[in-house]
């Protein structure tokens, strides 16, 4: 629906999407086990992964419930953590330009991983492919693994034992790497990383990424020259996929 399936230039995007989907999805085991331990039923746990579908917020929700907190506190913590998804949506809306029902589905799949793979691509076609494939792959693996974790508890072990947390960090880095060829993106990257780390102890989890986005705003404010064409396609209305 988005690009020709046989296009060999799609292969790296597909590989990245699937790898990120598997690595992230496996953490669904942790979530499922934790949610049931916190007192949620199997179906409430499954509902959170299917309907909320944003890992950080889900962990926050069951964390508050598990600690004896009430519904409003859990909703507040989860929503605060999900705030960055709104910025992701803003960024992706410009690149994906989804219309009609696709916009509603795209919103649901808007999470760290689908955004990361999409924005790392050059060209609209690959940005779309990366978003939809990664979002779908994470959705499938995350939900299957949530159910597995809820049913089996901790018997499957902590995913970090297999280095999956380091794998996720390395995947984000590998997506970032090709963009670091010029001075400006290097400055933005270092600035954003430093700001994010400084924010970790200060603001609630999930917000450091949002605060770090301000670095992009700051650099844009200092240097108003338009982004060079090779790093960002001119914004234009491309073919409507519907």
């Amino acid at each position: 629906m988005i690009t020709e399936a046989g296009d060999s230039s799609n292969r790296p995007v597909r590989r990245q999407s699937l790898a990120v989907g598997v690595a992230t999805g496996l953490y669904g085991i942790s979530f499922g086990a934790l949610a049931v331990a916190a007192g949620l039923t199997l179906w409430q746990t499954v509902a959170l992964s299917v309907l909320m579908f944003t890992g950080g917020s889900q962990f926050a929700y069951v964390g508050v419930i598990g600690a004896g907190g009430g519904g409003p506190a859990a909703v507040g913590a989860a929503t605060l953590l999900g705030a960055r998804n709104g910025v992701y949506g803003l960024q992706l809306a410009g690149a994906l330009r989804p219309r009609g029902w696709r916009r509603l589905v795209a919103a649901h799949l808007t999470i760290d991983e689908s955004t990361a793979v999409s924005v790392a691509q050059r060209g609209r076609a690959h940005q779309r492919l990366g978003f939809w494939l990664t979002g779908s792959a994470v959705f499938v693996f995350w939900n299957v693994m949530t159910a597995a974790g809820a049913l089996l508890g901790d018997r499957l072990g902590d995913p970090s034992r297999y280095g999956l947390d380091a794998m996720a960090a390395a995947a984000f880095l590998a997506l970032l790497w090709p963009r670091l060829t010029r001075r400006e993106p290097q400055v933005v990257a270092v600035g954003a990383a430093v700001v994010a780390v400084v924010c970790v102890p200060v603001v609630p989890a999930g917000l450091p990424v949002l605060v770090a986005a301000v670095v992009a705003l700051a650099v844009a404010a200092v240097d108003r020259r338009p982004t060079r064409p090779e790093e960002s396609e001119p914004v234009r209305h491309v073919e409507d996929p519907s």
Partner: protein
Amino acid sequence: MTAWAWVLVACAAAYVVKLLGYLVPDDLLDHPVVVRVSGLLPVALLAALVAVQTVAGPHGTVVLDARLAGVAVAVVALLVRAPFLVVITLAAAAAAGLRALGWAA
């Protein structure tokens, strides 16, 4: 309200937040300032995700553990132009290995 009701309220709130960005009109998305910022935003978001995923621990702590070693290995792999799957596999193997040996948390 019941536990179920709160679960559904939280899910609805998460979805509304996700949808908000998509409801911004195209005219605004095409504005030069927005285009300029969205050219820089991917780098900022990716770099922040790398940083947080590497050092953020539970309850707002900054933790230096096997993840950092995994990312260091990934940097070396990227410098020698290893493919994506090799980079992330080496990072996972390095972190898992250090943990198995008990050399890092």
